[in-house]
């Protein structure tokens, strides 16, 4: 198990290093970064002065070293637009995205897992048809389209939910979500829901026909005992990785959903930063989301290893 964790940790660090490499050289590849920072009619002397001040005249490898050193402590420089540290802007927007992603994940799990279990346990039944339908819808309907439809129906026509924006509720100094999160979270979680239904269904179908399930029956256990102790426990282990990967995807913020629903999260910030060609901010967001995804994958692998005795007691 220790070796397993160490090797995953090493892989994660290598991936992050690769991400930093790409982020840094992408900026170089788009042309002279200084041109982004000066006004359109700056004189060559002014441009040279900025280049000097920003250190862009140093050898690339030195600049890259500096960039890495900054990245390690979360310093990506100031946002060109907001004139404040890019990381501060990210941390400011983070709670909104976390709220949205967590809600989306819970909704997806609440619908996806039970539906997958019911479908997989009763192949060919009405539940199974529903499960397969939900899986298909989740994977084919674009979430921004669904978000628009939901807004039209539940916000505009029925008026049950707000059409856009994030409202929170303060309770004992804690910021709590309100119903404003329901609509964007549902749209965002749709794809994850589809994945969970499909995966749970096929895992249950596969495990049902395993030899050890037949052994469980040959011991005289009841259907319920067999489902809970033998089928579900085995299906839950690979489910851990799907959920972990999906949470990473949800947490990296959705440009579409956050923009359509005016949700003040990371996706929204990223859309704005791209629009402004705010390079420091784009770099910071790109690295931050990679960090979140890589960390989550690492945690997922560890959780998976803990849950599966073949890894926990393996070498």
């Amino acid at each position, binding site marked *: 198990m220790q070796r397993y964790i160490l090797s995953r940790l090493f892989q994660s660090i290598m991936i992050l290093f690769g991400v930093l490499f790409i982020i840094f050289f992408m900026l170089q590849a788009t042309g002279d970064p200084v041109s982004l920072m000066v006004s359109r009619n700056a004189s060559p002397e002014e441009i040279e002065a900025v280049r000097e001040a920003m250190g862009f005249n140093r050898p690339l490898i030195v600049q890259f070293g500096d960039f890495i050193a900054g990245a390690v402590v979360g310093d990506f420089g100031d946002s060109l637009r907001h004139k404040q540290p890019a990381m501060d802007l990210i941390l400011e927007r983070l709670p909104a995205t976390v709220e949205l992603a967590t809600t989306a994940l819970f909704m997806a799990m609440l619908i996806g897992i039970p539906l997958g279990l019911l479908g997989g346990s009763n192949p060919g039944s009405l539940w199974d048809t529903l499960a397969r339908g939900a899986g298909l819808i989740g994977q084919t309907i674009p979430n921004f389209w669904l978000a628009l439809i939901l807004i039209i129906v539940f916000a505009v026509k029925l008026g049950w939910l707000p059409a856009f924006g994030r409202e929170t509720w303060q309770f004992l100094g804690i910021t709590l979500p309100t119903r404003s999160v329901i609509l964007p979270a549902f749209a965002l979680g749709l794809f994850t829901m589809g994945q969970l239904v499909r995966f749970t269904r096929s895992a249950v179908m596969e495990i049902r026909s395993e030899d050890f399930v037949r052994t469980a029956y040959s011991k*005289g256990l009841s259907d319920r005992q067999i489902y809970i*102790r033998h089928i579900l426990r085995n299906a839950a282990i690979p489910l851990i990785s799907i959920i972990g990967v999906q949470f990473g995807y949800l947490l990296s913020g959705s440009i579409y959903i956050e923009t359509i629903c005016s949700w003040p999260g990371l996706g929204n910030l990223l859309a704005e930063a791209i629009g402004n060609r705010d390079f420091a901010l784009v770099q910071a967001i790109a690295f931050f989301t990679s960090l979140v995804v890589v960390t989550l994958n690492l945690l997922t692998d560890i959780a998976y290893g803990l849950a599966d005795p073949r890894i926990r007691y393996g070498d």
Partner: protein
Amino acid sequence: MAPILEVSDLVTRFYTFDGVVHALNGVSFDLQAGETLAIVGESGSGKSVTMMSLLHLLPMPPARIEGGSALFHDDSGTIDLLKLNRAEISRVRGGRIGFIFQDALSALNPVMTVGRQIAESLERHLGLGHEQCRRRVVELLEKVGIPGAKQRYRNYPHQFSGGMRQRVMIAVAMACNPKIVIADEPTTALDVTVQAQIVELTQQLQRELGIAVIWITHDLGVVAGIADRVLVMYAGRPVEIAPVDDLYDHPGHPYTIGLLEALPRMDAAGSKRLISIEGSPPDLMAPPAHCQFAWRCRYAFERCWNEVPPQVSVGPQHHITCFYDVNRERPRDNV
């Protein structure tokens, strides 16, 4: 000796997309208390399906048991296994009839400790409490020859060697003092020396606990060593049943004769796998309208192609499903 199990005319079919598989076409045999009955036959002859039909372990659909009876006698009376409902058969499974499967690695749950997997049937059938269960499991593990049973209780299947896993499987099957243990090719996945140990262990426990064992195998060497009687299956029917010496000395069915001829001389210490004889088994998609062995039979004559042969007795315990009398080299006239 009294029979503990009497199976008659068992018919099992699979209704698949490609058509109906006639897997069992009238299987009859009996099992005496405490004896070892070996079942041999080519792959696909219906050995496993017979046993799984008795305990309702086949996936339904596609499987359907369409006829027959399986009378199980014990102290509390006689029941027809095929007529039991889900709750009733689950009391028999693991309680009065234990099952040992071929590949213990896939037959044990990879994420549950072996101790728990044995304890499960004790809880279910003997209603033992937690502490009692634990003690009994450790006892069982010791009995099947697992060193360090107390520590091994908490281990998972992948932490055992193949032979040790099969010992765990035996402990599962024997946990609740069953009357019958069905062993479906329990040694096929193991290497030769371990095979011998497993055979020996099973025999020892069988004698100690007075269990009747049905031993399914391809290995005629094992059969000669352990069986009291042998049942030879072909295309979903028993073609010959006889006491083991009788079968080896006076085989009466052309298929059995072929099997024994194809067998390399058994003076070598190693056991020999059943080498199949010339030709291939019939397609089970068509319902049998004549002797299913006729295509491959060197004695086949006209009647064999027109009628399905019935089971005839050629001795007090020796039954053959064939129209031809190989000893007198002519068709039987009394069938």
